[in-house]
């Protein structure tokens, strides 16, 4: 390895900045999401900056006693989630990034499930089901990208020609993943902002103030991860990438609004049935028509 020259240093600074700013961008997007959702329900909706307000308020509330282990796990969770996003942004290996994000989510589940509250434990169990649904899909997406680009590095995938034939099914899988990352459906997870919740606040029941803000940041990183994966499909043409993100996001919002009573069990069959099938089709087409194909 050569010594880090100025360009490398600049790239590193840019990477750190992009990773630090990623959740802020997701926050803004969630603000828009809440406005769009409100419009679909014939409401005005909160200000677009609402997620930022919420986060600031949470972070500056006075602290309540917190379980030491859960708090440390939460910190580690955010570090790993941010690291997974940074890995992709740096053009690193997609499978590595997916594995790191999986580890991050495990830490969150442990943080949620390791406290006394039965609500939190049940919430953690349901988070675990979401992990079970989304982890294989994420891996399949990474492998499908690898098949298209002939390499698993995010840089190679971003540089690869837009896989037109793979896009629709890959987008479907990523849409399912996005819907899972947003945590709005299924409703019995209780971590959403929707009024119809079960289990008090599910996995975040025992988190308050700063620690809830931390959980929120981790959650935003998780969303950012899926969004970056979507954008990877055509980063060569930036506007198309943004369009794909917007289109997938819109589909996810519509799906969320049309399936308000989706339970974790239906999520399992929707996720594996639709998302999994689409991912397999994407794998096949990507291999047949992508740069990695023989």
């Amino acid at each position, binding site marked *: 390895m050569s010594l880090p020259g100025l360009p490398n240093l600049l790239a590193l600074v840019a990477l750190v900045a992009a990773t630090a700013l990623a959740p802020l961008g997701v926050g803004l997007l969630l603000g828009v999401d*809440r406005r769009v959702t*409100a419009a679909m*329900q*014939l*409401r*005005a*909706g*909160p*200000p677009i900056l*609402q997620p*930022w*307000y*919420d*986060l*600031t*308020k*949470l972070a*500056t*509330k*006075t*602290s*309540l006693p917190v379980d030491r282990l859960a708090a440390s796990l939460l910190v580690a969770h955010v570090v790993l989630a941010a690291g997974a996003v940074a890995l992709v942004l740096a053009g690193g290996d997609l499978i590595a990034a997916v594995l790191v994000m999986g580890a991050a989510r495990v830490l969150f589940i442990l943080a949620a499930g390791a406290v006394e509250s039965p609500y939190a434990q049940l919430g953690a169990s349901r988070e675990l089901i979401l992990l079970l649904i989304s982890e294989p899909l994420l891996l399949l997406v990474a492998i499908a990208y690898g098949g298209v680009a002939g390499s698993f590095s995010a840089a190679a995938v971003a540089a690869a020609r837009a896989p037109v034939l793979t896009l629709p099914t890959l987008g479907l899988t990523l849409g399912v993943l996005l819907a899972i990352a947003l945590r709005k459906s299924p409703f019995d997870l*209780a971590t959403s*902002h929707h*009024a119809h*919740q079960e289990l*008090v*606040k599910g996995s*975040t*029941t*025992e*988190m*308050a*103030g700063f620690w*809830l803000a931390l959980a929120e940041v981790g959650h935003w990183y998780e969303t950012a991860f899926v969004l970056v994966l979507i954008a990877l499909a055509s980063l060569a043409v930036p506007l198309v990438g943004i369009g794909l993100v917007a289109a997938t996001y819109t589909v996810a919002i519509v799906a969320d609004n049309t399936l308000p009573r989706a339970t974790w069990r239906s999520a399992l069959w929707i996720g594996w049935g639709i998302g999994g099938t689409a991912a397999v089709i994407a794998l096949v087409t990507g291999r047949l028509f992508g740069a990695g194909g023989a």
Partner: protein
Amino acid sequence: MRGPRELWQAWVRRSRTKSPWVVHFDCGGCNGCDIEILDTLMPRFSAERFGVINVGDPRQGDILLVTGPANLRNAAVLRSVYDQMAEPKVVVAVGSCAAHGGVFRGAPNILGGVGELVPVDVFVPGCPPTPERILDGVIAALPLLAEPRTARQATGGPSPMSIVMLEQGEEEVVRVPAS
């Protein structure tokens, strides 16, 4: 010209007033007020315009909306829910029962209004109050969330610092003058 510190503090104050998450606690009334609170959260009145989210967990709430009279049966529960909320927090007593016991006042198990148990910041009278009035009460409480608050005592009825939403008249929000 304000420095970054001032800007940050202004941002924090703004965030705190624009993100009121409410915890709804029914102390044991007739549920009329509770129905009205749910109405307030529905799209017609759309409390989410003001950043209101109904959370089921007092640890995550900023505003405690209490309905019904204070009574022996769940006095400890109300107190516990209040104690589990993190500062800055405010209490909005919704309806006549929460204000002073309402039609239940004088019954052997009734202590009076919820002010007997927790320090109430805003009284929203009415039996039941309309959703608009409940929303007004919540909004009237927002400035109280902007600054750090010190511990407060339950004073029974309205205290010098309480806000009382009048039932009628032009001036809807009236601060009770110091006696």
